[in-house]
């Protein structure tokens, strides 16, 4: 990957759909124009690009800024839906979690409609794979005990992390449009600047330049370089699906661009309303012929809606000791393909197409977050 491409990827990491495309095009034009200007002043292309990217500044600053403009307002709208569901008699609850044994880290999980499907980030998912909020003061205490430098201001609108052995401080900025809204029991939405979304945490941590992993299902462990911490303990467990969803949403979106499906309006998300998708789901048990239990998988299917094809992101699941995983799907007979290209191929019949992704545990290298499970290793049992 070229420096330019890497920069564009990082700067647009947190965006998707139309916004991602617009910001990328705009930055590409900026880079191209500025490089040209430097070349006119006698720099060679490599020098010109280096200076251009330095002038632009760190890509995660752009990404974080754009997140405040686009991502958080979208989130707030999504939460509005969740609160609407809550008002219909479903309840939200506040779960506590613990970090590294001692520090209590309150986390609000959006489980307002347990077992019900809601739309989160444009995907229809089970609510339990939805939103996760992390308490900033607790995270600060936890990370400082692990020698991470944490800088904040009084109102928590700035939150900066510098990990040992990293020269890149990670700065989270929460302007007045990106305040974190949290869902609390019987209180609906609260404007609570002390919380940040787990997705935002994961999205930004990858800019440290250090190896980053997410491992273990029962007690998920995040590692950034030599620093390891957990967002749960046996006493105060976290919903692993929620945590993994927060970590994996952006990488999934990057390799499985949902805008590729809608050919007429390529910037719009496909229609995922119940009217557009088959809503009758059945449980499919999948048997894998690989000797790796306790692995995390994501199933994505392409299903024919009333107007157009749509993607359905299924629950993130972990395989059992028998190498089996279970998913709920609207497909009667999923047809697994061996590449993303084949998944999107417009020439052949798209019906029943599915792809199974195995999470490698690594979150730092874009290309290495997932492996596609070859169809020859997949057997649908029921």
């Amino acid at each position, binding site marked *: 990957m070229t420096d330019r491409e890497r920069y564009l990827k990082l*700067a647009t990491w947190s965006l998707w759909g139309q916004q991602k495309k*617009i*910001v990328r*095009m*705009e*930055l*590409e*034009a*900026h880079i*191209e*124009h*500025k490089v*040209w200007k430097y070349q006119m002043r006698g720099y060679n292309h490599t020098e010109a690009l280096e200076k251009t990217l330095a*002038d*632009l*500044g*760190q*890509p995660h*600053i*752009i990404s974080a*800024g*754009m997140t*405040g*403009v*686009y991502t958080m*307002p979208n989130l707030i709208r999504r939460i509005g839906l969740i609160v609407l569901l809550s008002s219909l008699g479903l309840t939200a609850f506040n779960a506590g979690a613990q970090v590294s044994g001692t520090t209590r880290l309150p986390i609000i999980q959006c489980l307002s409609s347990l077992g019900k499907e809601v739309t989160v980030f444009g995907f229809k998912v089970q609510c339990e794979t939805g939103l996760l909020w992390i308490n900033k003061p607790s995270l600060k205490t936890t990370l400082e005990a692990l020698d991470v430098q944490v800088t904040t201001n009084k109102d928590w609108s700035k939150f900066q992390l510098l990990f040992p052995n990293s020269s890149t401080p990670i700065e989270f900025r929460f302007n007045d*449009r990106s305040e974190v809204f949290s869902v609390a029991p019987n209180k609906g939405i609260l404007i609570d600047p002390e919380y940040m979304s787990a997705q935002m945490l994961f999205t930004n941590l990858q800019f440290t330049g250090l190896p980053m992993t997410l491992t273990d299902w029962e007690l998920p462990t995040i590692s950034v370089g030599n620093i390891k911490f957990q967002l749960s303990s046996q006493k105060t467990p976290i919903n692993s699906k929620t945590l993994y969803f927060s970590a994996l949403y952006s990488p999934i979106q990057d390799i499985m661009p949902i805008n590729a499906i809608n050919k007429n309006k390529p910037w719009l998300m496909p229609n995922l309303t119940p009217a557009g998708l088959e809503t009758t789901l059945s449980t499919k048990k999948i048997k894998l012929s690989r000797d790796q239990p306790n692995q995390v998988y994501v199933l994505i299917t392409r299903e024919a809606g009333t107007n157009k094809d749509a993607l359905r992101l299924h629950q993130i699941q972990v395989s059992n000791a028998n190498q089996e995983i279970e998913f709920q799907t609207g497909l009667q007979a999923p047809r697994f393909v061996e590449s993303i290209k084949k998944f999107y191929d417009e020439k052949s019949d798209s019906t029943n197409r599915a792809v199974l992704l195995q999470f490698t545990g690594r979150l730092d290298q874009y290309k290495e977050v997932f492996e596609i499970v070859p169809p020859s290793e997949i057997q649908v049992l029921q």
Partner: protein
Amino acid sequence: MDANLLKGNLDLILLTILEHGEMYGLEIIEEANQRTNGYFEFKEGSVYPALHRLTVQGYLEANFKPSPRGGMPSRYYTITDHGKKNLIQKQAEFDQFSQAVKGLRLEPKTQS
């Protein structure tokens, strides 16, 4: 220039630059630099989120148009009527604030 001062007035600066015509991001940055003899030192990447925020708020409109030198199309920003009203309000607030700060200063006593 104090970065906080720049950040706190970024909307006012951008709307002022766009008051009399459309421009794309790099042009806006260079214009700010030229008009103020380099007083405003933007980290260029920080300008784009602000431009997008102002667009979402309805103060600016944005469209891709062919770049004057060819190559990739640039995204041009134009101030809207809503943006112009907001600019007048922001300028008045800034002038008031500036006057108020000046009013705080005590005149040095003249020595006789």
